């Protein structure tokens, strides 16, 4: 087992991070919130980077990469609080449609003319779907009621849960960075509040949670890519670990910001609300805990020394 990434994989993640940091900063989030939350120019920029084709086989005009690379990019989308449905379209819909042999929409996904968010029965809402818009707590998320003929395919669910987990890791990273920056700037009692252990220890606990969620997400991506027997268990583990890390970090980041963290004018709430939305999407905490307990206690995961950490 080797958790290291190749230079190409790391370069890909870094380039997406830098691109989004340069073109999708908080002033863009504010503009999207105030003036309508989808922007064709942002979408086209992502398409031009080739991100819509990451998981599409080369024979179909894509880059032919795997879920590990896609998960690394999804982390960056979370970090940037990206509103455009890149993850849903390129990292959930595209691999699912390819697997289903429904390749007629793939060219449109790659060239950016199609945004597809697949409906799964586990989600009552469909992001960026047709129909009357529902007001989500996340002002950058466009929801409609899910259609009745939603898929029940477990592979689709696992893709959605994995990519939500990856985004949640990036969201948690971003919130921890904002809270840490604030703790260095904000002074009370004659020193930066980050000098107080009461603040320091809380932020350190978030870092622990995030760092232990990150490799679980990588492991799940590799497992789902390989299609192993226990891939679903790894995905559930990833969704739970990332949800817990993101919710802890959201709670802590607001607390560290004090009353400022409770205002709409501080940017933090965009990430906090995305964390909330994605925590519930593609299977609640209870759903994923149940999948794990059924696997562990129900015997799907073989236990005993010869099966260590299967």
């Amino acid at each position, binding site marked *: 087992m080797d958790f290291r990434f190749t230079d190409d994989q790391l370069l890909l993640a870094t380039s997406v991070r830098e691109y989004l940091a340069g073109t999708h900063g908080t002033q863009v989030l504010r503009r999207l919130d105030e003036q309508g939350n989808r922007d064709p120019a942002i979408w086209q920029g992502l398409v031009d980077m080739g991100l819509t084709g990451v998981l599409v086989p080369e024979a179909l005009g894509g880059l032919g990469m795997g879920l590990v690379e896609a998960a690394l990019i999804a982390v960056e989308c979370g970090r940037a609080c990206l509103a455009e449905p890149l993850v849903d379209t390129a990292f959930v819909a595209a691999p699912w449609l390819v697997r289903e042999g429904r390749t007629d929409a793939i060219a449109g996904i790659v060239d950016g003319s199609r945004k597809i968010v697949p409906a799964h029965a586990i989600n009552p809402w469909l992001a960026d779907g047709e129909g009357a818009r529902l007001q989500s707590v996340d002002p950058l998320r466009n929801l409609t009621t899910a259609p009745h003929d939603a898929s029940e395919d477990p592979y689709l669910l696992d893709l959605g849960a994995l990519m939500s987990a990856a985004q949640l890791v990036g969201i948690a990273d971003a919130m921890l960075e904002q809270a840490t920056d604030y703790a260095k700037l904000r002074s009370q009692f004659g020193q930066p509040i980050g000098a107080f252990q009461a603040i320091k220890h809380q932020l350190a606990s978030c870092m622990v949670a995030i760092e232990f969620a990150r490799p679980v997400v990588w492991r799940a991506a590799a497992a789902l890519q390989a299609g192993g027997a226990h891939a679903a268990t790894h995905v559930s583990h990833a969704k739970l670990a990332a949800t817990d890390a993101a919710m802890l970090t959201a709670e802590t980041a607001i607390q560290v910001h004090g009353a400022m963290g409770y205002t709409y004018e501080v940017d933090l709430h965009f990430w906090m609300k995305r964390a909330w939305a994605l925590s*519930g999407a593609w299977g609640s905490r209870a759903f994923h*805990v149940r999948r794990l307990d059924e696997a562990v206690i129900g015997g799907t995961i073989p236990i005993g020394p010869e099966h260590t950490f299967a």
Partner: protein
Amino acid sequence: MKLGFSPQEEAFRAECADWLQAQMTGEFRDIRGITTLTAKAERRKEWEQHLGEHGWSCIGWPKAWGGRDATLAEQVIFAEEYARAGVPGRVNHIGIELAGPTILAFGTEEQKRRFLPGIAAGSTIFCQGFSEPGAGSDLASVRTKGRLEGGEWVVNGQKIWTSLAHISDWIFVVTRTEDGSKGPKGLTFLMMPLDQPGIEVRGITQINGDAEFNETFFTDARCPADSMIGGVGDGWKIAMGLLAFERGVSTLGQQMAFRNELDEIIAAARANGAAGDPLIRQRIARAEIGLRLMRYGALRMLSNTDHSKIDGAALTYKIQWATWRRSLGELAMDVLGQAGEIAEGEAYEWGTLPNLFLYSRADTIYGGTNQIQRNLIAERGLALPREPRGDL
């Protein structure tokens, strides 16, 4: 120890319940069940006046000043029935629970005559000017300046998180009146009318889209010299006395509101099947235990009649309820599942439980953050050495 209420107290309870429910099904049914402090502000002011007209606005105050000399038990009962009837929070709670008791405790007879009748009648709405952009947890570092000039106090500076300043008539302000003073010394407590050219109020939008708080700017704002409570330099003592009132009877009514919230979560869990999830069931059971803990803790706190000392119950109460309620918000969201993500209409407005989740984020911050609370518990309750500080 005497648990439970006497027959007379139960009769009083029935009287409160009858009157409150009659109002909430009658003339004021349009405000029943409102959970924010901002909605229907004008009607809420009328409600304050209605309470005053019928002698229910400040029952714990002396009869001479519009109260009923109600016993502690009676105040508890009224607060419980108030929440049980679904009556929305008091837009003048600062006036009734903080400004009034502060004036009663520290004000002159003239000040009592000037302010108390209006507060009791619900016609004088008060807000609180303590925090500043640079003085939050470190409240004693206020920089808003006050100086005496021609028989008036002239105030310059900025306050923040002034809840409901936009609908209030008066603000009490902690000002620095001694040049060069630091920390709790050299502060003075002033009562100022908001409607004057020197005061500007700007709303702050919260994460739930509501705007209860404000920034309040003072530019040569004025009030008469005798609007000072206590003496020059007594501001910190008065402010701390006032914050002790904040831990008072209102906490018990608050628990009935918490009861309503937990009941709504239980109903939602039954309705959507979440009650079948063992994790949810256990969290609901733990929330129930936590609520009861707080109730007994608050009753114990209120039965301490020596208010010159803060006992263990009082010292630990804020962090207990705030942390409990923040967890309750998270439980509410897990019970609702993805349904909680959606607003009730097209606007960015939230039902009771999603709003509970969002609003309870602030509970562990305002009135002393959990971190400040733990320091107070450790330093005052356990007499541990004081937290090292930087150069002030």
